């Protein structure tokens, strides 16, 4: 009992730590990647030194190097956010004003419960699923929590007592109803194909090979669904090109009246949602923790070679594979964020209702025909 609990807590710590670190890393990635894309140098000045008796003689050169790479800017950011004054506007509601960012970040983090980060581990006679909650309708769980997350944003806009914040919140809600349908409907094709809502089972089915050589990843069997889902997931993250609720040049956004760590939580939510989008795309369309040609017994290559792999190495390769895929998608979303300009308001509605929604409906019909024809 105690051991089970400890194992569960360990998995929780792994997932939560991974997600928060990826989210924090994105502040660095945002600065440095955008700098590289625009032929700039980027953040390279923030660093601190330790006194020599606190290990400074050893750490200071390392700290200077890290500062030169701009990594310590994340610490400086955190320090700034934590020490800033927390201001609640007079027309605002103190309780709801505090609740809004907490709701946002809570639901964004909760959604990771159902995402499997690796295969089930068989160790010391136990089966340890590398998944916080083994929900058999995991896909619905993630989608539900992801859409509840927008309540925090709407609430923030509502209780700030600021017209610009209200506009931001309203924009968030109407943006949500334009992408949310496409987000859900684009996945129905995948659900029909895999015949399950359980994310772990979905990933295991993606380990099969099509025609003996092509991994049956979701992107291969559901290319349109993948494209629509990625677009809608990008809209869900509320970042450029879909950052209408923030829209810094037009309205400052739903967090106009937020300062200090409450603003920091909204900031964190954005990054956590990017990780969530990356993890969802990886799980449903890019094979999750699957490594191509890797079965529980070892590599079985289509050209006939085999290579035995121990169970722990199999689990490790799965974890690494999932992490690398998620990182690639974070990079890709960041690339989109720094390349495309913001959609206009009506363009987003147009895209959501007139392009993505019919496209995902057509995808369902075609997938249905294919599934019936192939069975």
């Amino acid at each position, binding site marked *: 009992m105690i051991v089970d609990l400890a194992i569960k807590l360990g998995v929780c710590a792994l997932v939560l730590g991974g997600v928060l670190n990826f989210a924090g890393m994105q502040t660095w990635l945002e600065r440095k*990647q955008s700098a*590289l894309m*625009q032929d*700039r140098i980027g953040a*390279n000045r923030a660093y601190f030194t330790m006194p020599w008796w606190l290990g400074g003689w050893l750490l200071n050169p390392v700290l200077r190097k890290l500062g*030169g790479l701009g990594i310590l800017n994340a610490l400086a950011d955190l320090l700034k956010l934590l020490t800033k004054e927390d201001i609640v506007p007079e027309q605002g509601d103190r309780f709801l004003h505090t609740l809004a960012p907490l709701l946002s970040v809570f639901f964004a983090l909760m959604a990771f419960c159902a995402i499997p980060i690796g295969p089930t581990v068989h160790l010391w006679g136990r089966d340890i699923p590398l998944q916080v909650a083994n929900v058999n309708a995991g896909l619905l769980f993630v989608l539900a929590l992801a859409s509840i997350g927008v309540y925090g944003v709407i609430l923030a806009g509502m209780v700030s007592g600021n017209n610009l914040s209200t506009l931001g919140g309203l924009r968030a809600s109407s943006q949500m109803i334009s992408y949310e349908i496409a987000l859900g409907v684009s996945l129905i094709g995948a659900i029909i194909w895999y015949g399950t809502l359980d994310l772990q089972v979905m990933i295991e089915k993606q380990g099969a090979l099509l025609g003996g050589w092509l991994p049956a990843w979701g992107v291969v069997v559901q290319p349109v669904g993948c494209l629509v889902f990625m677009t809608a997931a990008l809209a869900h993250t509320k970042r450029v090109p879909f950052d209408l609720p923030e829209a810094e040049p037009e309205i400052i956004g739903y967090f106009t009246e937020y300062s200090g760590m409450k603003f920091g939580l909204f900031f964190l939510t954005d990054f956590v949602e990017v990780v969530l989008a990356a993890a969802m795309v990886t799980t449903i369309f890019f094979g999750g923790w699957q490594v191509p040609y890797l079965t529980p017994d070892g590599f079985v290559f289509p050209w006939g070679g085999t290579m035995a792999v121990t169970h722990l190495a199999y689990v490790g390769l799965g974890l690494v594979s999932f992490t690398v895929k998620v990182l690639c998608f974070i990079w890709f979303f960041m690339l989109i964020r720094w*390349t*495309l300009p913001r959609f206009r308001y009506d363009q987003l509605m147009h895209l959501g209702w007139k*392009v993505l929604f019919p496209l995902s409906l057509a995808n369902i019909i075609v997938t249905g025909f294919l599934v019936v024809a192939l069975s």
Partner: protein
Amino acid sequence: MSSLSDQLLHRIRDAHKRRNLTWWERTYLPAVMQGLLLTSNHFWRNLFLHMAHRVGLFRNHPAAVTIQYPDQTRKTGIRLRTRHRLTKRDDGTPRCVGCMMCETICPARCIYIVAGEHPDPNVEKYPKSFDIDLGKCVYCGYCVEACPEDAIRMDTQRHDIAAYSRDGMWLDIKELLNPGTRVFNEPPEKFVQLEITDFPKLTPTAPPPPPGTSVTPPQAQR
């Protein structure tokens, strides 16, 4: 028969009419792909160059266009009017003969000269004090044009003039003779008067390197 200019005119007239996009273009996917390709090209090229610079390769291919200002300076044009200096004779005394031409022509009236008698009867006068208030100076360069002795020039390549007070913008004769020697944190010595025998002692122990005369490659700084 239409001439070339007619054709150009028609093109300009029709320029405001937008071409109808094809179906494939209207999905915006090709344009999005093009954009992502362009930015990711820059990303990977610069990432490679930054890493290569770490191990000392591709030094002459900069990975960024940034000039990290206080550490690196941009090479300035040789004719750029920058902060003033007074030229010297071989013995270290100023070339200035205290004719007051620059003080007279200065439209901002920021030059203050006190002339003294020079021991050499061929020279007649020398500046006991020569002060410029940079807070008033408009960098017109008339003083340089007016000078009959080529005694004042605006070629120090120093343009990073910042001070906490108006007094901090004051240049006395010592600074003008040896640009870059004044400690700008301290209040200036206004109208400091020097005897002709004081000038040879003014030579700085370690003359500061003139900025802007060379530019270090931008990738050297990390």
